[in-house]
């Protein structure tokens, strides 16, 4: 099975990092993975996004025309990627910045006040990890354990403090994302 996740938001929201964490987690589970950043016009300020594919078979196109999960952390991201969501896919929205309602209905929507939660945790840059936590609570692309392990590895160079913060962020998102009837 092949699952594609698109993360998108402002630069400085830790989008690319979160995507790499997911890819690492997938690799830790001996799955095939690919991580593709938007390296285009978004560079300077603006919007950053990346596509992460986790699959049981060798991966074909690293560019997707159907995503199983779209994580949109700001309004432009929603507008840009909503359309790529596969029927029944999961849309994670940053409630703090996005008032708009998604145009499509054949999908599952998870609204999280990511910005607010990030401030709780203490650093805006963990916002993507929070959202990713929420997403994984709904779609077990990889196990929470693999995610934590990957976070430990990748956040390490930032020091204990940063690692702890990221783990908190993931836990928080994972908890808030849990389906009500769970």
């Amino acid at each position: 099975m092949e699952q594609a996740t698109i993360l998108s938001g402002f630069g400085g929201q830790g989008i690319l990092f979160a995507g790499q964490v997911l890819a690492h987690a997938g690799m830790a589970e001996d799955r095939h993975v690919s991580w593709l950043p938007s390296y285009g016009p978004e560079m300077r300020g603006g919007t950053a996004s990346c596509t992460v594919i986790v699959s049981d078979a060798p991966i074909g196109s690293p560019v997707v025309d159907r995503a199983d999960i779209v994580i949109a952390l700001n309004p432009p991201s929603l507008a840009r990627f909503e359309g790529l969501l596969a029927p029944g896919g999961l849309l994670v929205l940053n409630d703090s910045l996005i008032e708009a309602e998604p145009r499509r209905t054949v999908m599952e929507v998870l609204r999280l006040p990511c910005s607010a939660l990030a401030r709780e945790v203490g650093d805006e840059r963990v916002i993507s990890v929070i959202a990713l936590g929420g997403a994984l609570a709904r779609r077990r692309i990889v196990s929470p354990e693999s995610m934590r392990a990957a976070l430990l590895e990748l956040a390490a160079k930032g020091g204990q403090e940063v690692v702890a913060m990221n783990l908190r962020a993931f836990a928080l998102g994972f908890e808030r994302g849990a389906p009500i009837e769970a």
Partner: protein
Amino acid sequence: MTIGVQPSRTGARAAPSFQPLDIARDRCKGCELCVAACPKHVLELSTGAVNALGHHPIRLTDAAACTSCALCARVCPDAVFTVYARARIVG
């Protein structure tokens, strides 16, 4: 248009409702160069808000204290400010 006109010397405190700055909020990138440049320390980022560009935009904390010196405008990379002084009374 950048001739260094000085604000009117009426001596009197400006009426509180007088607005010396127009701020193009959605152009601001929160670089805080104006904050450093403002001699009256009446500029700060509105950390609560995020503008269209995703930044915390600048805000004027005390309109009355602003002397319309326009230093903020001179340092702003994004030409966010229009600066006004009270009109002088003609005659």
